[in-house]
């Protein structure tokens, strides 16, 4: 009998090994359903706090680069504004229409500022953590942008933090279109370089050239239309040969961002309930 027990205990590590591997598998599987619990992610309170301290320390180091980028962005915007003013002055049509359209588009939207406290770009499925949560008005499915383009979509929130699915995630799919046309498709990331994404489903009769701008379509309630995503870098055939697959050079370098804004669109619920019908 004791021989039997001895034999059993000699193999107990096998059982433990299988149990722990199964547990790991469960966590892996659980995490793939990213809408699920946030407690096993870097957005849980303890992990988020540590990352936040670290982010504060690091932000001082990154300030010069961040500043330079903001200045560049500012100059670009000023130039754009200047061109627009000039165009508006030349235009003979009633300019209050443009103004009205813009106001209408941003009506009911608030921007919630936040800082990224944890980020990655090297994984297949990248997530970010920002330091704004439900208390600040952030909710799942809200869009996250920064000055240069789109960052991702909120997938889960805690009171003061939110877990954001980066556009560099295998499940990320952003409805987009070619600027100035109505050709639309979905922006997807296939791994590898963090600046290289793909837009598929572009019909073969569309006139496209390298350097064309890609922006959000506004078809989903997450992002308003017209947010710049990037430029067409390569024009390839899709795998089935029925459409084009465009290689897009993203405008946002996700490896190097700190300040973001969450778009809180009050009309989103309305649109969502309509889409659900």
């Amino acid at each position, binding site marked *: 009998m004791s021989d039997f027990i001895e034999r059993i205990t000699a193999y107990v590590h096998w059982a*433990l090994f299988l149990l722990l*591997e199964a547990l*790991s598998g469960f966590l*892996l599987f659980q995490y793939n359903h990213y809408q699920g619990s946030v407690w096993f992610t870097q957005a849980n309170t303890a*992990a988020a706090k540590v990352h936040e301290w670290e982010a504060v320390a*690091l932000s001082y180091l990154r300030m010069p680069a961040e500043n330079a980028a903001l200045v560049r962005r500012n100059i670009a915007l000023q130039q754009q504004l200047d061109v627009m003013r000039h165009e508006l002055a030349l235009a003979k049509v009633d300019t209050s229409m443009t103004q009205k359209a813009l106001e209408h588009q941003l009506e009911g939207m608030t921007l919630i500022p936040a800082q990224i406290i944890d980020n*990655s770009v090297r994984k297949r499925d990248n997530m970010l953590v920002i330091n704004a949560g439900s208390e600040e008005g952030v909710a799942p499915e809200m869009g996250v942008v920064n000055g240069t383009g789109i960052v991702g979509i909120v997938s889960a929130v805690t009171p003061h933090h939110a877990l954001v699915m980066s556009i560099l995630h295998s499940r990320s799919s952003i409805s987009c279109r070619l600027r100035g046309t109505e050709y639309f498709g979905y922006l997807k990331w296939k*791994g*590898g370089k963090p600046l290289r994404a793909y837009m598929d489903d572009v019909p073969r009769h569309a006139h496209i050239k390298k350097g064309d701008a890609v922006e959000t379509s506004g078809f989903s309630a997450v992002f308003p239309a017209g947010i710049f995503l990037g430029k067409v870098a390569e024009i390839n055939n899709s795998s089935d040969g029925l459409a084009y697959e465009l290689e897009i050079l993203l405008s946002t370098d996700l490896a190097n961002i700190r300040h973001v804004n969450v778009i809180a669109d009050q009309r989103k619920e309305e649109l969502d309930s309509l889409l659900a019908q």
Partner: protein
Amino acid sequence: MIVSTLKRLSWALLLLAIQVLILDQVHPWGYGAPLLCPLIIITLPLGTSRSEALLWGFGVGFVADIFAGTSGISSAALTLIAFIQPPLLQLMAPRDSEEELRPSFSAMGRWNYLQFIALLLILHHLVYFALEGFSYFHIEDIAISMGVSYAASLLLIILVEHVRNPKK
């Protein structure tokens, strides 16, 4: 016993902190970053029971996963090498070594210890990157990521072990 456990715990916490606070933020050209956590399992002393090693492996992996947002990946990979480490150490440690020998360059011999590290590390990386890139489109990208991370991790671990290198 308690002192050695505490020592090992602080060693593990130090390596975890370096991993989470520094290495996880490094993205060499967008490819794999060095992983230092396997060193915690690699340096488990001779005579550690296999069940204890497994708990170390899973525990370290679990914490690393939570901070890196890679639930289950590190814990699976580290549990595997924790399963293999004790018998492999028994096999590769010098015959006349003391009971609680802690693996190091001086205790096991330079070449022997290097082989020991390289073997456990490649197992860890194979599992880690296989799980991470489960549905990978670009198989060559994942291979490059793994290669870059493996080389970086190996270099870093050798460096750390040289700095630590205890005389005994």
